[in-house]
């Protein structure tokens, strides 16, 4: 690509934003190289000869007068085998490569390919010469990790007849593996593709999601489920458990590929994922979780301008794996940092500020991002399906959800997990507030639960919700008159609600067993709790003293159900249930005798 590139010079530097003169002819959102150190930047405004550029690296020491060169290309990611298990910065430079070049601290001006050019992959062709191929049709396959078969696809915008394809064998990602003839042109294809991050990869059609994304988190799966291809937001003040929750979802959700974006958050949290995921086993495949995961890290002390690049990079990778027919889940922690980066850049551009200083286009940018989620009929001749589910943390100032980022996000997403500082303070985790949260996928996923797990799922769930609702009303009364003043029936109801809260909704992310709860186990737990609720009401009707009911031994057994392993729970739950029935019967008989 030898082309006379456009060259200007810096005229102003203000933090991550610079201006350059002599840039007429450069295109909006093109990537540029800035200064003598060739820092990477992106054009975000053009005015006559002047281009305004956000620089993805630290601008310390940069001088007006230094050169700016346009690459004439939009910000793009590299797609191909080798993405999984990797950790990238916001502009897809592998952090291990940066480490090799500059050591423990990230220095500027590092150039690093996202994918290893020298590694050989075993390619197995699945198309043959003469096949008529469309965008996203599969040329062949590469076993990228032991669990993910990487489909090497025709790029979305290409269509034609396959005129050559290599034999099964080992190839580097830049080797030509196939040639397609398309309207008299011959196009050579390799395993490496590029795609501009700000442009969604096309699909044929989007569908409504219908299957739940099972996460192994009780409060999510049973109470506020998210669907495969769905969107969810998890807002909460600091320390309420957003990151732990997103880590849990990345670990345990039954997506096939996971993209985790750390956007403006802590370095140690990325380190945590890096050291923990390889050791953890996927409950479904038994393989290391890292083998299905790509990490993207633009931590809070890394350049602000790369915040939004990190999220777009992530979603583009997610779409790419979706196009292979996978269910992909993307977690972004935290979208507020992305919004703040937009605000900072917008401020430096001296744009007219909207609400709380955020630019007026905040809402549309957030919508654009979440709109790239979904379940879709894919391009290609086979009409395959794939999905991208997106879960984003929101970090509202002062934990107050009325601020613009939370509000604009809620207008878009279908699931709202409202974290609550009060619950977090008392170590009720996950601190999802059951009265404020909602899921709009309940109807869509209930038929799956009914068919695959248990007939009464929706009933059990709705009854438990109603119980919690009633509890909060009763608690208002208790605050005024004390619990003693309530009739025994209602005190029993408070007990049942307390059980749901403490023993079902709460789930420790750090307990070896409790960290993941299978859907069947969730169902059984809720069923037994519902039985407890019925039985103690019956005991009350038989005039058993409330204090005697509260102190039954089974209460403690039920409280420990979460920590019974997924292998043994069916048998042990049976015992617990039997004991519960006998105990209640026992105390009823006791009363009847006297």
């Amino acid at each position: 690509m030898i082309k006379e590139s456009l060259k200007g010079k810096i005229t102003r530097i203000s933090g991550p934003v610079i201006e350059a003169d002599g840039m007429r002819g450069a295109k909006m959102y093109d990537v540029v190289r800035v200064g003598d150190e060739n820092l990477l930047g992106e054009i975000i405004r053009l005015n006559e000869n002047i281009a305004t550029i956000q620089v993805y690296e630290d601008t310390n020491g940069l001088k007006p007068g230094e050169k700016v060169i346009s690459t004439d290309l939009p910000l793009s990611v590299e797609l191909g085998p080798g993405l999984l298990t990797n950790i990238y910065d916001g502009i897809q430079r592998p952090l291990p490569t940066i480490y090799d070049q500059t050591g423990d601290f990230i220095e500027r001006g590092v150039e690093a390919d996202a994918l290893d050019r020298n590694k050989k992959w075993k390619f197995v062709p699945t198309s043959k010469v003469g096949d008529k191929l469309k965008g996203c049709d599969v040329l062949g396959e590469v076993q990228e990790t032991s669990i993910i078969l990487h489909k090497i696809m025709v790029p979305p915008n290409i269509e034609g007849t396959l005129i050559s394809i290599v034999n099964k064998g080992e190839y580097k990602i830049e080797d030509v593996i196939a040639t397609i003839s398309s309207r008299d042109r011959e196009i050579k294809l390799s395993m490496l593709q590029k795609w501009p991050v700000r442009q969604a990869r096309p699909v044929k059609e989007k569908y409504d999601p219908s299957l739940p994304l099972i996460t192994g988190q009780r409060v999510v799966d049973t109470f506020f489920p998210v669907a495969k291809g769905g969107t969810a937001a998890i807002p909460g003040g600091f320390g309420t458990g957003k990151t732990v929750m997103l880590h849990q979802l990345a670990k345990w959700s039954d997506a096939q590929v996971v993209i985790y974006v750390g956007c403006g958050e802590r370095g140690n949290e990325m380190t945590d994922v890096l050291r923990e995921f390889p050791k953890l086993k996927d409950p479904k495949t038994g393989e290391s979780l890292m083998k299905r995961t790509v990490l993207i890290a633009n931590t809070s002390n890394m350049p602000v301008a790369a915040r939004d690049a990190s999220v777009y990079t992530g979603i583009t990778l997610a779409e790419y794996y979706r196009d292979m027919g996978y269910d992909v889940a993307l977690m972004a922690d935290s979208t507020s940092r992305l919004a703040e980066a937009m605000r900072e850049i917008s401020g430096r551009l001296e744009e007219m500020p909207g609400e709380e200083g955020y630019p007026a286009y905040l809402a549309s940018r957030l919508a654009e991002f979440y709109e790239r989620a979904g379940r879709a009929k894919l391009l290609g001749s086979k009409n395959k399906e794939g999905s991208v589910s997106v879960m984003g943390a929101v970090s509202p100032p002062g934990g107050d959800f009325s601020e613009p980022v939370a509000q604009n996000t809620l207008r878009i997403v279908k699931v709202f997990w409202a974290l609550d500082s009060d619950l977090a303070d008392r170590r009720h985790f996950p601190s999802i507030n059951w009265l404020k949260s909602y899921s709009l996928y309940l109807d869509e996923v209930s038929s799956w639960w009914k068919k695959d797990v248990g007939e009464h799922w929706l009933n059990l769930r709705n009854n438990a919700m109603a119980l919690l609702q009633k509890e909060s009303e009763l608690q208002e009364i208790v605050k005024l008159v004390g619990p003693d003043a309530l009739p025994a029936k209602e005190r029993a109801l408070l007990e049942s609600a307390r059980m749901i809260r403490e023993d079902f909704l709460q789930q420790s992310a750090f307990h070896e067993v409790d960290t993941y709860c299978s859907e069947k186990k969730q169902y059984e737990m809720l069923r037994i709790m519902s039985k407890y609720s019925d039985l103690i009401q019956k005991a009350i009707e038989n005039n058993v003293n409330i204090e005697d009911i509260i102190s039954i031994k089974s209460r403690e057994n039920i409280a420990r159900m979460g920590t019974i392993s997924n292998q043994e729970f069916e048998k042990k739950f049976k015992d617990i249930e039997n004991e519960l029935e006998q105990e209640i019967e026992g105390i009823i008989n006791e009363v009847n005798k006297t």
Partner: protein
Amino acid sequence: MSNKEIEYTTVSEVAGPLMIVKGIKDVAYNEVVRIKTSTGEERTGQVLEAFMNKVIVQVFEGTKGLDTKKTSARFIGETMKLGVSKDMLGRVFDGTGNPIDNAPPIIPEDRRDINGNPINPYSREYPREFIQTGISTIDGLNTLVRGQKLPIFSGSGLPHNNLAAQIARQAKVLGQKEKFAVVFCAMGITFEEANLFIKDFENTGALERTTMFLNLADDPTIERIILPRMALTCAEYFAFELGMQVLVILTDLTNYAEALREIAAAREEVPGRRGYPGYMYTDLATIYERAGRIKGKKGSITQIPMLTMPDDDITHPIPDLTGYITEGQIVLERGLHKKGIYPPIAVLPCLSRLMDRGIGKDKTREDHAGVSNQLYAAYAEGCDLRDLVAIVGEDALSDRDRKFLKFSEEFEKKFVSQDEHEDRSIEKTLEIGWELFSILPKSELKKIDENYIKKYLPKNE
């Protein structure tokens, strides 16, 4: 003639902490400026915004006495650097990094950019070595680990300085004898407050292992922007070059944030919440994220930043943004202080995010996590009941509830409260926890493994 030797007398504007110099060329963003006032006084500044022929400079020692006629500016051709050396231990520096203890100047072993570079998350080592501070509410419930950043959220008039000094005095990693150092960075605190630390370091013999960077209440405010960066540059040198375990105490971040706001206001930036700049989160992150551990390196940086919450409001942007960056927080409460409880740590809003990985068998004790969770749950319940009792009276409570109420009272008296010089071992802390559990019905101890209950719960007669 190189730029370094040119004395520009083309100052065109002075406003707030800022100065504009025109007619310059070849000046870099963030370059350091040496300023000479008309009376010959020297000051230091830094380029905040660079244009082809003009720069905006922030002046650290303030702009009082600057003029647009005689004041001159010289650009030194590099960004702000600090000369570092192991000889900085035991020394005291001012807000621009010059020694103020009447001892000879430091001969630097290296000169480093004070802004540092971000640690590559791939090179980080996850912090997990338990630091025993000897304070029950921290060790037992909000465990500090090596390489953590754990701030103290306080209010004016609360004994946060005593607490920080106590931590500095007592902190140790069990079973290890290693080189450790304290870097103390004072931003805008009074002489008296600073003296509390200096005296304490002196008494415990820690002074020779301490490096101090002082900008006191009557020192120039804008210096507070560079001070923590110098302190951390020094700390990084100690930790990652010399292999020391460094404890960095930063106080008071509230004054730092005020200085940041002053600059933002002078630049007429669009203000964020309560007038603080929109980029304050990122700015604070470049300070706090310099804590940590690095793979293959012996040393570590543990940060204890302190801040006073304006009007005790934890949702104020300074504590709020801090909490979003740090790995937990220790919160002090006026109510407890008034009750005469020291340290007045409000347990419920406190958090240590790195605790889970630093405790348990072989680190502290097998029952630690369970004890901590149970103490939290029971205390939270007891606190709720207090509110209830205030309205309906204690008689309306059930037997069970009365026990929780008693528990919360005893918890504050026995567990939270301790002497400023009492250094409790982790075993002692856990033991107090178990004693408190014997107030509660055994069936309520649902957060602890049954085996531990058998093993540790005191048997009543």
